[in-house]
């Protein structure tokens, strides 16, 4: 979803709030990130930031996932977690959109980008 939807209220009905949550933390402008799945009831009371921390501290990662985590941590060194163009705050449900797998299973999806700010405007070296 483009960042232009930043202002748009994400409307989820009550049934959708009971779906599993797929959290994806993407390093920089990469296409894919680290995925974590939260079962219904396990995420609603927690802040999105807490969920991100939990995801980033996951153990038993594959080699590919470990590389993604390294990239994310490199971005977060002085960087921040952004979702839909703004710094994350509040719960995951505030940022979630409903999606479905190819098999037709519905889930809530929250994409988060780890971005290391790059201040422009100075004369580059």
């Amino acid at each position, binding site marked *: 979803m483009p960042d*232009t939807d930043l202002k748009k209220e994400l409307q989820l009905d009550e049934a959708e709030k009971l779906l599993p949550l797929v959290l994806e933390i993407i390093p920089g402008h990469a296409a*894919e990130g680290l995925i974590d799945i939260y079962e219904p009831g396990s995420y609603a009371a927690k802040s999105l930031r807490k969920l991100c921390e939990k995801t980033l501290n996951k153990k038993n990662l594959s080699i590919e996932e470990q590389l993604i985590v390294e990239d994310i941590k490199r971005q977060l060194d002085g960087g921040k977690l952004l979702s839909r*163009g703004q710094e994350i705050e509040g719960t995951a449900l505030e940022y979630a959109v409903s999606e479905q797998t190819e098999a037709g299973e519905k889930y809530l999806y929250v994409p988060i980008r780890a*971005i290391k700010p790059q*201040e*422009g*405007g100075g004369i580059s070296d």
Partner: protein
Amino acid sequence: MKQLFDSGIELVVESDFIYFPLLFDPDIKKEIQTVFYSRKDVGNPDASDSKAVIKLKGKYFVKGFRLDSLVNNYEAINPNSYQRLKNECLRHYHLTREIDGVLLDGTLRTILFQVMPHFIKKSKDLNRKTLSDEAILDLIGKKTNIPESYYQEARTFSDIAPLKKILKNIENQTPVLDLPGSGMMSGHKLRDWLRNAVHVKVLSDEYDRITKSLKMREQFSRMKPEHIATLLYIADTGFLEIDGFGFIRKNAYRNEYYVYKRSGDYILKDYYGRSYLFPNCRVTVSTYMPFRPFVMEKYKHPFLLKYKSGQEICIKNFNPPDEPTDKCIINTLEEGLTALQYGYDPRKRNGYHSLDKLWIHIPTIDFEDYII
């Protein structure tokens, strides 16, 4: 000569010489009679020993030139036609510099197999895995509309037997130029023979390159035809774009590319909290110096000095890499995208221009048309 070959009139090949129809008038008739009576084989004018004039099926033909000398000197005789035939031959055997260069080009391999996977969605499922080169080529094939003709070409490309045969003939120094048999034949037939003969000569002249190409083809012949088709398509067009990531060949000779990632539309806010919708643009880096991010199209932004195309994005503390490795290309594109989308601070009004108009009059770029 071209007109003669194109006209379709009957010509004669005799003892590796080409004979042209003799124009006939009373004076020429007299001359012919002199020629024929002076010969020993006067009673058998059809018997030929590379004579100046021969008679075949009641028609007279005058001696022209040796066919092999025509082939050997064709470049000087008809440079344009030779160049056309040469190009045709090299294309037929996929020996054009572009294709050889592109398929062996390390920069392109870096872009395709190291940089591109970072910026494109590899699958719809939730597993994250590194793709092999073959899987990346499959993905490109799925996401790109490659014309059928490239699949046909791929089959020709992977058939290395004809090239091997030519190379073997050259190595054995056996004559690779088959002269046509003696007798009468149409200009069209001779034109086709000349075309093939020039092709053989071109291939002989290009021995080194054929050897190199053959080695490369042997590696590629183990690939799936669909993958070869994808690579031939990229070699031919010098362009590819998937999921907003793409590259354009800038200079085939030096294997230079513009690698880009589209920003998509994005919003920046000014000092007063007003939102400005910035249009999609291609943040680009060249694989040839300087390795700094720039915006390909005509574009305006606080970090771009003017409103024009090809402007370098002004970034603080950016140290351009020394060589275009995969990590450097990825990093440069990321820095450029981050600067455009997240680098503007409305309180500091950093950059060349402020989004909101300043009280003090400073001639600058106007962004009011982007306000939403």
